[in-house]
């Protein structure tokens, strides 16, 4: 029974992490207590396409790499 509960907890943790919720995971941005919109409302907005920051061209020699991001990546 303990093993079953452990497994259930692990699945709950996994789902929570996937949804970006904190629940025991110290690594994620958690949802603020006060949110402007629900997730369904956010997904209902018209989308402005965002420039990719990762090279996902399979034939590119820099495939998988990220573009330099100010205030994030250390200066070269």
């Amino acid at each position: 029974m303990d093993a079953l509960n452990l497994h259930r907890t692990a699945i709950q943790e996994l789902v929570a992490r996937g949804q970006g919720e904190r629940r025991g995971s110290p690594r994620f941005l958690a949802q603020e207590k006060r949110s402007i919109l629900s997730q369904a409302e956010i997904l209902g907005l018209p989308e402005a396409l965002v420039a990719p920051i990762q090279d996902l061209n399979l034939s590119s020699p820099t495939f998988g790499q990220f573009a330099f991001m100010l205030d994030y990546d250390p200066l070269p």
Partner: protein
Amino acid sequence: MTTETTPNRRTHVRLNPPDTVLVEPIVAHERSAFDMLRGADSQEQNAWLMPETGWRLEPLQRRASSLSELAALSAAILGPADLTVASGFLQAPAFRQEADLTGLTYGAGVSTSGDLFYQKQVGAGQSWGDPSFVLAADQASYPSPTAGAENAPMDRVAVGTAGAGPDQEWFLRFTVPGGRMQAPDHVLTFYFTGPACQGLGQWAIAFGGDGYADVFERTLAGTWAEIDRVVWCPAHQVGRVPHLVHVAPQPLVNNPKLSGVILFEFTLAREPARAAAAPGHFVPQAAESKQALISIPLTGLNPQPAPIRLDIRRDIRTQFQLSKAMLPTIGSLTDDRFSVSFYPTAAEPYILSWSAAVPAGCSVAGHLIDAATNVELTVTGSVGGFPMYAPAYPARAYYVRFDLTGTGWASPTLVGYRLQRDAVAADSRATETALEAETTGLAIVGADEDPSHESATLRVEDRFAAIPALRANGEYTLQVETEYDPADATKRAVLHRGAVVRTEQIHRPQSWTTYRLTSVGMWQRLAEALSPIRFNFGLDTNATGPNGLPLPYKVTDALRTMFGLAGFAAGALDIPDLPIRLFASGDADGLLLEPQASLADLIVRYARDYLGYLVLADANVGARGMWRLRPLGTAANILATFQTDGPGAGKLPHALPSYPANTAFIRRRSYRTWIKPPEGNVVVAFGAANAAAGGGAPMLYKQVLVNPASFDFGGSVTADPTSVDYLGRVRMLYQYLPAQAGEAAVSWVARRVYDSACHGKRLHSFQAPLLLVDDPDDSLLTHLRPLRVNDCVNIGETVCRLRSVNPAYMKDAHQFAFYEAEEL
């Protein structure tokens, strides 16, 4: 030759060491303009609450009778000096004292005659489109917004002689001749300057005969764009009745959402109604007033002032009057009574501050008044122009009064106020007790990335019942230290500082008492502090971006503010000044710290999520420890080495001095390694932007990042089954941004989540002697300290970052710790 693993170490356990404790919490009371004056005890004089704006001096014209009869208001009505009117329009004053009536005396403030109106006067046989009725040159250079969509021409009949500011309020009075059944498409258009929305901040409101009014703004290209349509009058009541329209554009202060508003107030003087109870009689009807508000999103556009103008339909002999808002020069607000949630002493002053827009010549003065005596508290000084008051214990019920002073033409705008008093800290009065020989064992769980995990357990033997302190209280401060320098007993590394929250007394018949002490780290002090007020981190009033808009707080400034709200003074903090700001493009609702919100939680979250920094309660710096913000450790600063090899021939392998400095052995059979799989391999970050952040309309931003080494991506063989990142299948991670933000923020968050969650990690754990190290990168450190989370070490040849360090030992000669580390 020593047989000790850690010679020269000596543990000291101190109960109630010198400590700074909170004795009076922070006190704050905050009111926005819209929360003020809601109770029965409140009152205002000459002031009104303008929607979405704040408290202002009330224009005298809001009562039409003032405009009509008072001599003082004649200065507000625009005449030939202020307004160029087409020559075919005649001046037609609407009021004069009835001097021929006997038994009638007017008040001193009533004008003899006045209330100037203009009206088109068409002579017999004269064309209604005669040049004398149209300012044709001005209309040609500044076309009407309704041009091309008019059933009959709209003629420019008046234009101001000077540009009008974006905060200039106007009153327009006019009548529309004609029958009730007539509904012309347009009757009159008024032009004014206001805050810029999408263009020049030059606005026009075109009143229709059907009761609707279209509101236009002139674009940067000089064309007109319709912004809104409002109802200004009930249908079929446009004709034959006088109208009073108040046009009040206002740029806003301290509003993170809006740059301004335009308020229209439409007052329709209704005709008397037939009395049902008395056939043949008519009952006067109260004027009907309607408000319409246009909210203007925060933009970086600046208004370009233009003169006011007026268009009137050619076939309607509208009688019109224009006046600029005239205000009383003084007003006051007395807000509701309130009590603060503590009993403050004079140890710290109150500061009464307020947020207000104060044009030249205007002022706002706030006063904190004792609710019991109705006397203002003693002013002890000022800070930033705001008064400081001395609390008089035990009084804690007050009210606030504001005096507004204007110029007659300009008014201050009070947006809100705050009464705040800093926390009071003092030296703890608890008596220090040293537990030296009595401590027979200790186990410390050091802080990890979550500082709340820090704790300690001690076993104390009280053979002679000599430690009454352990039986006196349920909670006391605890500090565990160890000596390490035989030449200087004052040099001590602090292994733990916290608060004992559970003292178990283990009773044994006919024997001494054993205590088991459980202590939690300094985190407890932070965790028990809750935010006393709502605080908006979305608006840093001291910083504006390249577009001239206010920026959100720097993360480090927000952290300092939250520590301050928790009662920690600047001397107890070591927080660098970093340029990264919170995400809040154009809106800050997601960055409001609500009353009673957990400060500790938000502090750790902001430091970790935005900066990638750790919050540490560091007991080894400062006299009584400090809260510190430290960057993630890197391979550039290796503090120690752990090895499985011995020290070499002729040296005792279990003795720490046998090894080079900052090097220790790993205890046999304690060494474990394992791989922690990635939490996911695809990150999808969503962000909702409001109109300002979204470039004019609410938008969804989305950024998708993948780890192709973890699974086969794009229909190709990209995964590496030998990689620690390998999962072999897609595992999605969804992240919604906490606040409304722009494209850059969405990408930034996606990258942060990717780096922290989309890679597997090789972890190491082992037991080794408790190493005490110096950190050359730490300017505050004056003695050795134990290794801790985030320190970088070599484990053999592998560079790792420590995840936790947990000292546990029973003899000073053999001080050991359990270490857990992840490979960089």
